[in-house]
């Protein structure tokens, strides 16, 4: 044991290294020329950075946002600082921070967190010329949020265990005996709660509640979220699942032919083919209103909308961009959208019904 002091020396050494690194790390940033996907969005010369940076709380992941934000910085010279987290946790943080938050913009990939912030009066008004870039149905009546991409509810199915002929047109068919024990539902997941809330608004509480209870009685299986359902369907663990269309394209792009699942589009007027919007908001009381609006306007520009549909398989909402050919067409009669404004208070009743159905324990 002559070297009994060595662990302590080791610790001191590590401490010195880490402290030095913490102190010496970092440095100024210069706009680098764009490459890769970002260069497809903006191919020109970069402008030098100036003005106040825009601080974004993003519930959409870095993988989806980074090319867009790099292009924005390069093209406009407005710097961005981003905190990425789930939209729910960011909304909770914003509520905790109140008027002391650094955030100027909040991006959500589902409506629930926006309703939560709206109820607490934490959302500011978006400029009229930004709002008018999208259709009336994809923006707030009170100018508090604007949609910038859409994700459609679909039925994802395993191509080996489900015959194309037996695919349903409506979610109501899934309570029939032939679907017993074969369907996955993301029970208490945020996007399912949002969808179920609209279901209640459109079809009435009785119909919606009965459907969910029937699904539970028919052996519908509970899964944590959209991604885990798409994964399970792709492996053949379960035959069919009610999810957002988006995830299957991503899994297929990453895993390839081993992923044995396809999206099935329910009938256009069925509640099961709802378009759910990802939305941008300005934070009430932000010191950088101009930058915030500039950024949201950029999300609605033609190259960005094209990127969202061609690279990330979402539905574009502005600038006349058409959905990528790979995506099922949106129904001409107008796909239903979620009325975020009515959603806030509605979620509580939805959660009551969902919990009472016992789906979480399936």
């Amino acid at each position: 044991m002559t070297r009994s002091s060595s662990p302590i020396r080791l610790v001191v050494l590590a401490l010195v290294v880490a402290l030095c690194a913490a102190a010496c790390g970092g440095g100024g940033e210069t706009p680098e020329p764009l490459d890769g996907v970002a260069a497809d969005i903006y191919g020109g010369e970069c402008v030098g950075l100036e003005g106040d940076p825009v601080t974004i709380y993003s519930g959409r992941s870095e993988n989806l946002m980074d090319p867009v934000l790099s292009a924005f910085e390069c093209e406009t010279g407005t710097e961005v600082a981003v905190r990425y987290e789930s939209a729910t946790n960011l909304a909770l943080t914003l509520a905790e921070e109140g008027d002391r938050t650094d955030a100027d913009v909040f991006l959500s990939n589902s409506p629930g967190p926006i309703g939560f912030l709206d109820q607490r009066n934490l959302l500011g008004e978006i400029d009229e010329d930004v709002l008018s870039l999208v259709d009336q149905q994809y923006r707030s009546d009170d100018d508090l949020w604007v949609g910038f991409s859409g994700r459609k509810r679909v039925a994802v199915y395993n191509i080996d265990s489900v015959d194309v002929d037996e695919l349903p047109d409506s979610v109501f068919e899934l309570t029939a005996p032939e679907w017993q024990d074969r369907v996955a539902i993301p029970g208490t997941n945020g996007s399912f709660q949002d969808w179920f809330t609209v279901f209640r608004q459109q079809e009435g509480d009785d119909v919606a509640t009965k459907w969910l209870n029937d699904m539970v009685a028919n052996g519908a299986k509970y899964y944590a979220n959209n991604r885990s359902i798409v994964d399970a369907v792709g492996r053949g663990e379960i035959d069919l699942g009610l999810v957002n269309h988006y995830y299957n394209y991503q899994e297929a792009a990453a895993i390839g032919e081993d992923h044995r699942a396809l999206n099935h589009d329910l009938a256009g007027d069925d509640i099961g083919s709802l378009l759910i919007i990802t939305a941008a908001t300005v934070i009430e009381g932000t010191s950088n209103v101009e930058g915030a609006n500039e950024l949201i306007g950029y999300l609605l520009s033609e190259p960005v909308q094209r990127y969202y549909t061609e690279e990330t398989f979402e539905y574009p909402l502005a600038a006349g961009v058409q959905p990528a050919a790979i995506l099922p067409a949106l129904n001409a009669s107008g796909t239903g959208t979620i009325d975020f404004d009515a959603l806030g208070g509605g979620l509580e009743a939805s959660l009551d019904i969902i919990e009472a159905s016992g789906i979480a324990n399936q």
Partner: protein
Amino acid sequence: MSAALAPSISTPRRVRPPWALRGVGVVLAVAFAFPGLYVIWRNISTDADPIGLLGSSRTLDPLGRSLQLAVLVSVASAAIGTSLAWLTTRTDVPLRRLWRTILPLPLVFPTFIGAAAFIRTLNPGGLANDVLNGVGIDRTFELRGLFGAWLVLTLFTYPYVYLPVAARLQRLAGSLEESARVLGDTAGQTFRRVVLPQITSAVLAGTLLVFLYTISDFGAVQLMRYDTLTRAINTNYIVRPPVAFALSLLLLLVAVIVVVGERSVTRKMASSGSPRATRVVQYRLEAWRWPSLALVVVVALLAVGAPMVAMLDWASDGLLRATRNGRPLTIDADKVVEASWHTFESSVLAALVTVAAVLPIALLVGRYRSRAGSFSHAIVIGSFALPGILIALSLRFWALRSGFVGELFAGSKALLIFAYMVRFGSLAMGITLVAVQSVPDRFHDVGATLGASRLRRFATIDLPLMAPGLLAAVGLVLLSTMKELPISLLISPIGYQTLTTRIFNSFEESFVAEAGIMAVVLVVMSGVLSWFLILRRAEHR
């Protein structure tokens, strides 16, 4: 009290601790109490009704499932962690040093991707399926529900027991064991009669962490589709905040009850006064050598191998696809290097700061049996049962409301390290306490008689003797920080991405290739650090 004048060897002395130590202990206790106070405050400010919720089966059923799961995982982790620790430190099981590097690694898997990787490997249609079909076995089992959650959480949490017990075993004097063997005890009898009583406090400390971790876990139970209290808390955050806060308070109460219970059991146990092994007894397993190896291999394969198979599969699929004409990856080498560096930097700092912070409390409890110390101890450990998001939110809350101090630290790395410290102090506490108690009072008395000052005695007597325990504590906090999610996402300086935050961001939006690549980097990095901390130390053997 004459006890102060006639020091005993085994129990803490009833002397008043130095005032400076007490002061430091109280200040630290306040810091560690932030999350708990926040939850209590939010219960008051939102008019939450935790008592009323207790009457509802919607609360009691998930709570019951949480407790059931936690007990089952605790028992299994205690058994596995203790046997693996004994096998790899005290026997001639083959490839001991390799196992000692690998066995702590499950700590580093973030549960959301670790559990998903298990499912990807072992469930129907998964990677193991092809192998089984290849050898003609048609049935695959499905990991889910109580069994799935139990298996995954046991495999992820046994290191909480393994690390402290291994550290303790390396310091047990061989004399008692040798006497037992000479007097005719078999290896098994020696273990039961001599070794087990001496390591019980370490086993219990680790098992307590397993229990608390299990009731706070959300990622694994959610993916295993087992409906526990954390699921209820999570779905209520934005829909019915008062319910989420009330349920969190119940979780906290369970934690406090369990912590106080554990404390009252361990306090009655005499800590051993045999700190320094002149020679550690090594057992020859003889006929048991290969079955023992099989146990170690099975645990390593399941706990580290199975998730790694899926992660490597995701990573290689994505890399292959990107090099052929497929979709390009959304990360590049620069981003991975930057995130790796942030992970390394923040986890090393957090581990050192955390162990330094719990040491004063451990001294108060272990050496002086001070009431303030016991109180601080319970606070530090109990907060481990709170979901990480609440700890992150509580620190946001306090940082915004503590005037210039908050201003100073808001958005800085210091606040991030502080948050990790509050989150993981509990991990360091148990082992540090065992380490403190392993220093016999008589050594101090000798030091004092020879005229050494208190600080000098601490540096020359205590620290060297506590070193293995403290290093194990550093290891535990280090690996846990590397995978921590909510704090890393919400408290870090804006734009400060670690491997885990990038893995989370990628995985949740189904960029599984990117997530897989960075998860492999995370595991390799933690393996190197684990080797550095745990194995290199043992080389002088």
